[in-house]
């Protein structure tokens, strides 16, 4: 595969599809979009199959000096690979999810989704700082249209809020990037990753990046755009927003802030931990009292992302690997949950939890899938959620037991709000006539549910498939952070090597904490 510009091809296919969608008319554009996303998914699979685990850090690199001041430089490592896979996997499902739900201006809608795909995978591929910024910001435009044109009643407000909130954060990051480019004299990301910025400068750069990425994450207290955006966006818009766009923030933390500014990261660790702890508890409590299903899941996303940030800033292998798995797992599970909401929304056109009830009776297949994804969101062992939460809490515990304690309460609260949601929607008496008339999943919805469920289980049962490509990259980041890493309060002592069955002994306590949900 070497030498063949597969990454550029992966960007070109959806882009060509997007342009085609604008011209082929509403009916055809659905098929064009599905075809383009599936083709990109196949290319993604080829990419994964050819990715050399344990090989060079950057693979499939491409470099073309197109822009003078900066380059068309693409390349991926394991983390980027996994996030690209997540994007290309979710995309065809999003197109299918909007197959019938979107009735007006379908061509434009499909074009916007395909542009969204180009932009998202471009962010993960970019190896040039300015190219990264261009992709990163470009995502605002299609999402603005998706929320604003095809969204709910209050869509215009939500679209504005989404756009301006994220823009305000991003522009500060741009200034930081200009400073970095001036200081290091290059826009090449692999070079910058190993450049040691002066400690005083690092703090400012870190804060500027934080302003942008914390909004994208979103972290408390700058998360308020997210519930609005989710509630107003069409189903597929929410799927892609929760599935991939929220991961851009965490990706930025891991790709830029931590390895490029290790000293500042260590110095401001308390800030991230503090905000994460507040977010976990606060947004979980907020989720508990929501009456709108989408809002509830949106707040649960904020809580999950807070565990991700805490896990990342644990500065150790388990914490970061766990955070990455939560990102992937949450990408699949929250997209699936939003789709579950979309399924019943398409039938009854309301997201009010009280309007439903007793769906287990007339929609058993739906109830089954919804149950699976609810459990995965809670983090039941055997589902994808468990692996990520367990690993990251393990890592956090090593760094700070207080933070680990607070974050774990979030998981208990998570179980509370998700099960409460499930009980109100799916169980109970089937009393309402219009709810009784709702048919179970159709073939199209099955087609979307099955792959999502399969991946959620795969990740839960054999996470090694996903961890293996990322392990080397996480080790690199951990090594980069090691000199700055503050001592944790866990005081781990290596136990005496006992034969067999002794692995993971030191982490026994938190294993119970993670498993006792």
């Amino acid at each position, binding site marked *: 595969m070497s030498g063949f510009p597969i990454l550029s091809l992966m960007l070109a296919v959806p882009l060509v599809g997007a342009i085609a969608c604008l011209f082929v008319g509403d009916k055809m554009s659905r098929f064009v979009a599905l075809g383009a996303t599936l083709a990109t998914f196949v290319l993604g699979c080829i990419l994964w199959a050819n990715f050399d685990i344990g090989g060079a850090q950057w693979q499939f690199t491409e470099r073309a000096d197109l*822009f003078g001041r900066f380059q068309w430089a693409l390349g991926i490592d394991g983390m980027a690979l996994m996030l690209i896979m997540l994007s290309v996997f979710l995309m065809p499902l999003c197109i299918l999810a909007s197959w019938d739900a979107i009735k007006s*201006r379908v061509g434009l809608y499909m074009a916007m989704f395909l542009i969204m795909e180009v932009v998202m995978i471009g962010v993960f591929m970019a190896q040039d700082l300015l190219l990264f910024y261009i992709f990163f*910001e470009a995502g605002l435009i299609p999402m603005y249209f998706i929320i*604003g044109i095809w969204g709910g009643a209050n869509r215009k407000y939500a679209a504005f809020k989404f756009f301006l909130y994220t823009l305000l954060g991003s*522009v*500060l990051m741009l*200034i930081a990037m200009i400073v970095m480019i*001036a200081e290091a004299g290059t826009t090449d990301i692999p070079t910058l990753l190993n450049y040691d910025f002066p400690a005083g400068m690092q703090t400012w750069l870190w804060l500027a990046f934080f302003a942008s990425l914390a909004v994208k994450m979103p972290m408390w207290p700058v998360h308020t755009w997210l519930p609005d955006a989710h509630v107003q966006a069409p189903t597929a818009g929410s799927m892609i927003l929760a599935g991939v766009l929220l991961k851009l923030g965490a990706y930025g933390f891991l790709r830029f802030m931590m390895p490029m500014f290790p000293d500042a990261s260590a110095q401001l660790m308390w800030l991230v931990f503090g905000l994460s702890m507040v977010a976990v508890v606060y947004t979980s409590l907020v989720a508990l009292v929501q009456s709108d299903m989408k809002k509830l899941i949106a707040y649960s996303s904020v809580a999950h992302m807070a565990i991700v940030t805490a896990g990342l800033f644990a500065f150790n292998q388990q914490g970061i690997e766990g955070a990455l798995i939560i990102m992937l797992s949450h990408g699949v599970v929250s997209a699936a949950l939003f789709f579950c909401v979309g399924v019943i929304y398409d039938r009854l056109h309301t997201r009010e939890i009280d309007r439903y009830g007793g769906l287990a009776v007339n929609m058993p297949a739906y109830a089954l899938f919804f149950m699976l994804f609810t459990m995965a969101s809670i983090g039941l062992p055997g589902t994808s959620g468990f692996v990520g939460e367990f690993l990251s809490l393990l890592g956090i515990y090593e760094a700070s037991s207080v933070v680990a304690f607070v974050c774990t309460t979030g998981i208990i609260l998570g179980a509370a709000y998700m099960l409460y949601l499930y009980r109100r929607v799916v169980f109970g008496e089937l009393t309402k006539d219009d709810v009784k008339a709702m048919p179970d999943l159709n073939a199209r919805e099955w087609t979307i549910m099955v792959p999502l469920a399969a991946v959620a289980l795969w990740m839960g049962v054999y996470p090694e498939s996903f961890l293996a490509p990322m392990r080397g990259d996480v080790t690199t980041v951990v090594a980069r952070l090691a000199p700055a890493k503050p001592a944790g309060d866990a005081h781990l002592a290596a136990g005496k090597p006992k034969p067999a069955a002794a692995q993971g002994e030191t982490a026994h306590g938190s294993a119970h904490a993670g498993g006792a949900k």
Partner: protein
Amino acid sequence: MTADLALIWPELILTIGGLITLMLGTFLGDRQVGIYQLSALLTLAAAAAAVVALFGVETTVFSGTLSVDGFGGFAKLLIYTASFVCILIAPRFFSGGMRAEYPTLIVFAALGMGIMASARDLMTLYVGLELNSLAAYVLASFMRTDERSTEAGLKYFVLGALASGMLLYGISLLYGFTGTTDFAGIAKSMGGELNIGLIFGIVFVLAGLGFKVSAVPFHMWTPDVYEGAPTPVTTFFASAPKVAAVALMTRVVIDAMGPAVGAWQQIIIFLALASIILGAVGAIGQKNIKRLLAYSSINNVGFMLIGLAAGTQQGVEGVLTYLLVYVVTTLGAFLVVLQLRDAEGNQIESIPALAGLSQRRPGLAAAMAVFMFSLAGIPPLFGFWPKYLVFEAAVNANLVPLAVAGIVASVIGAFYYIAIIKMMYFDDKSDTEIPAGGGAIVEDAVITASALWLSVIGYLFIPVLAVLSASAAAVLF
């Protein structure tokens, strides 16, 4: 002297061509639109060709009062191109009311602007400025039976005269305290201790020039004049004179006041930030698209001044690139406005009438969306790139707080740009029918070309732009 004449071919061509156009109009009558329009277009094209032919020449003519260099050449090419487009689009707008004065005045204005961009002496500066301004006053009131147009012309004239007065006062102070009107000579005196007279001179000259670039707080005329003037004239005001004035200001600041950085830099920084913020805030409540674009031009001038405030070659390169991209975007946006006509062919200027435009005229709405996102500086549209360059220049000149303030204020500006897009795409169709305008192939072609260029394609031109702007900016350092 005769050798000097060979170096000012662009100016000579414009003078002669302008006179020929005037004669053609006088003798053949205003009905012969095709002929005098063609004459004016050919004149501008020939002048542009002469500028290209002189590329690489770097000298001064007429005892050092006028320069022939890459910087002036860059600005002149932009000015002539913008003037060219503004003549091209006029007949369809004025329909029956087209008169030969329009292309003639634009050619003479272009001549004045060329002189502004090349001036190396305070007197040539003033001659060029007034030649342009006088033509512009008449152009603003071109539709003499229209109340708003005459009002715009009068307002422009009165305030313009005030600004000229301030400028002249500043010029007289600079002359009085340095003993010369030559930029190089003034720069020499600025190198030493600055006395109060010189500082006052700098302030008044910059105030006069600030009026011409419509920087806050000298911007008050802009929205009224832009709104009142006929749309092709507004297109012209927003493009070519902006280039000339910014180029002139750059040359005065760098060439004549260069050594007195401390004195002018804070003025420019104030003008820049005030323009960005007021240009953005003022635009929010606007209901008229031409007024809104007027505020947008004020806002954009603010960003250009950030590059100028840096006072480095990199900053000037940023300013020049910004001018180029700004002219393309502005021409495109105004051409879209020009296409907005209701069923009776009346011009539509109210912003609420744009509601649902994407369903009536998808192509036009898409182009407008590109222009708006580009003006807001959202990547991947090309409007991002010049903003990046000026901010980079400011950061590299140790003006990080200025860059941060500017970029944060740019988010305020983004608000009204995306509000236009919301109007076109999210809102339901308005009652106003906007039928497709037939037969405007030229306009469609210009809109399509500029929209495509401002989408990602523009990035491929960065290396070329970098070479051009660097060679132009290098002249001043």
